[in-house]
């Protein structure tokens, strides 16, 4: 009987959602409460990570990886912190365009010169780290308080939750278009995709541009949330964004994954952080626990297959 409800939960697909729900229950049980405010905080903390990870998601779908998204978000955040107070439209536009331009650079290098994405973005990661420090040598700048207030406000639904939901909808829309199908096709088999009529160079470049712009949106959100810019704030997200998409069930081999998984990945990482904070454990543990959970998730399909096979064998023998 146990096998029946286990298979009904469809662990294979719903793994990220179930992990998140389990962690959320643990969180509620430990703290003994789950207020509107907790929900708002959780979403606000998860939002920048989710955005940067969506950027990572588009690139990983094509079978690539982008290590420069963290620093790109630093650059965008720094631009925003310098410009938003003067003129909001300019601030947002410059930040997002900077991200898109940085992504275009990655895309052109990967596509035109057929360089491995990991090498290209390792290089540009360093470049954008430097550029961020040139723009904003010290943390600071200014973000209009009304923006920060808006992000932490609650009009029946917490703004941060609405923003997260919106980001999810936007990302699912992108993956459901012909462009999204082409992203997955390239990730699965680039040659076959080209032979099937996919404009591989254009689609791949677009993936990096989109990733840069999305990561920039994440950087701007970070600046708004903290009311200031920091040239190194994105560094934490360089590998965290990769871990997040993997936690969300996206295959680093390319071609497999969905937007809901990425949101769940971001929420999982965030909730672990909040649990550790609650337990008064050092944030060093966050790194260890994130790593262990990541390995567990990556290993789980093969472990489950193995257990399933042993189970079937036993039943057959019996």
């Amino acid at each position, binding site marked *: 009987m146990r096998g029946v409800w286990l298979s009904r939960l469809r662990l294979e697909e719903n793994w990220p959602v179930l992990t998140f729900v389990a962690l959320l229950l643990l969180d509620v049980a430990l703290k003994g409460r789950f207020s509107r405010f907790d929900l708002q905080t959780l979403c606000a903390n998860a939002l920048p990570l989710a955005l940067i990870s969506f950027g990572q998601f588009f690139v990983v779908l094509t079978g690539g990886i982008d290590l420069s998204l963290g620093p790109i978000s630093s650059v965008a955040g720094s631009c925003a912190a310098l410009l938003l107070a003067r003129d909001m439209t300019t601030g947002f536009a410059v930040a997002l365009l900077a991200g898109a331009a940085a992504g275009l650079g990655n895309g052109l290098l990967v596509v035109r010169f057929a360089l491995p994405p990991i090498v290209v973005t390792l290089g540009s990661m360093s470049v954008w780290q430097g550029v961020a420090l040139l723009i904003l040598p010290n943390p600071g700048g200014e973000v209009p308080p009304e923006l920060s207030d808006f992000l932490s406000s609650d009009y029946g639904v917490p703004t941060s939750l609405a923003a997260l939901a919106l980001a999810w909808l936007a990302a699912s*829309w992108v993956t*459901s*278009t*012909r*462009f*999204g*199908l*082409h992203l*997955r*096709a390239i990730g*699965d*088999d680039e*040659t*076959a*995709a080209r*032979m*099937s*009529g*996919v404009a591989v160079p254009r689609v791949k470049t677009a993936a990096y541009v989109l990733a840069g712009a999305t990561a920039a949106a994440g950087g701007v959100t970070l600046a708004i949330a903290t009311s200031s810019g920091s040239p190194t704030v994105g560094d934490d997200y360089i590998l965290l964004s990769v871990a997040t998409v993997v936690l969300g069930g996206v295959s680093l081999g390319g*071609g*497999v994954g969905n937007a809901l998984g990425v949101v769940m990945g971001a929420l999982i990482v965030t909730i672990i952080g909040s649990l550790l904070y609650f337990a008064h454990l050092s944030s060093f543990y966050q790194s260890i626990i994130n790593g262990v959970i990541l390995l567990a998730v990556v290993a789980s399909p093969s472990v489950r297959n193995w257990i399933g*096979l042993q189970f*079937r*064998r036993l039943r*057959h*023998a019996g």
Partner: protein
Amino acid sequence: MLALHNLSKRYGVTEAVKSVSLTARPGSVLGLVGENGAGKSSLIKMIAGVEQPTAGHVALDGGALTLRDTNDALRHGIASVFQELTLLRSLSVQDNLLLTDGPRHAWRSLNRRQGRSVAVEVLRRYELTMAPDAPVRALPLGAQQMLEVVRAVERRPKVLLLDEATSALGAHEVEWMVRLVERLRQHGVIMLFISHRWDQIVRFSTRVAIMRNGELVGEADTRTLSEADAIQLMTGESFEASFPRRPPAGDEIVLRARDLHSSALRGVSFDLRRGEVLGLGGLIGQGQGALLEALFGAHPLQSGTIEMAGRTLRLANPAMAIRAGLAYVPQDRKTEGLLLDKSIRVNMTLAILRRLAGIVGFIDREQEQTLVAAAIERLHIEARSPQDRVQTLSGGNQQKVLLEKWLQTRPVALLLNDVTRGVDIGTKRQIYNAIAACAAQGAAVILYSTDTLELVGLARRVLVFKEGRVNQSLAGEAITSQEIVRASLVRGGADARRVA
């Protein structure tokens, strides 16, 4: 009308195609036959836009075409299907169909339900029974080829090129293809197709063009040309010479399989004797491939035993199987058997490095070199040097390298999974000789083939599979094409439960 005017292709010093001129009317189906290296594929690739001619040109409906790539050819109404599939293997059937059949607008969401109805409609129109949600990699090769053909046809081409694109089709699937070809003919589509299977040439084409050494050596009505005549034109040799003499089987049982069960097998039992070539037949995907993979430790068994030399084997992975003396040549050499980026030498000795290694583990290069040079000569592998990357070889030569890799291990039992698929008659003959030589030296061979003639020519016994069981076991004089086809269709054959 499709016209080729003095089409030529030169690679370095070799002239692959020498000034071929040919015309095909709307509604005609032209079968292109010839040995490997005869220039068929090069010819097709120039029409498909994959290769550019060094001289001459392709004209469609009177206008000369300059084709930069396959997408360019598609815009001119020329669709092509090659043996190397262009399906996205981890995407679903539905997504694969949408890739070519989906909406033209890049940013309009492909509503899931809508996408599904498009896919279901396409599958229904082509009488395909596969589930839209199934990932392509889970489909048997024959079904994958059908899907690939459908994708090409869905582009509504004026010219359809099929280069070994129907090589894995089973009997039922060939019937399906015949109906499709007939339908396309009525719509005035011009079809050119390459196949090494004469039965398909006969069923599909109205005319046959025969190539040898880059030249067109003959063109005839399909009905007036016999296979024997065609082979004579292709090679200058006769058909009977294709198969080597079958070596006599020994009495010693080298492998005993009992009641094998798995997701694809439903109780398979048989004995394999020393020096025997045991054929596996039947429709595609009836468990033959799964059996070979199970014996090689690559397909998990739920129950049953495999014994070799009196000991029950535990075959949890290929390494264990190799140690027990089994060798497996897979169907898909590109993804399962060869390191395409590495040299012939590396590929050939990969499985026997332990034997070549000295005391401290350094590889004996001299011994390795002699060994590889001898193999290249013995199997007539066409390459400039043992250092050539396998990728640069033709399909037939790649197959020979793969076969040799395993022959080098001097296996007790050699498992062959449709190894001559898409290989020309000359190479086939060399592979047949290698198989016979291997058996003559005492190895047992299990040969699965979708080409029944091959089973007739090589095997002493044929186990005909149906739905994961041995439906019937044929031996000696009973092994004929008709008998194999009959045995693969009859319900619950007499041998279904017996040890074969």
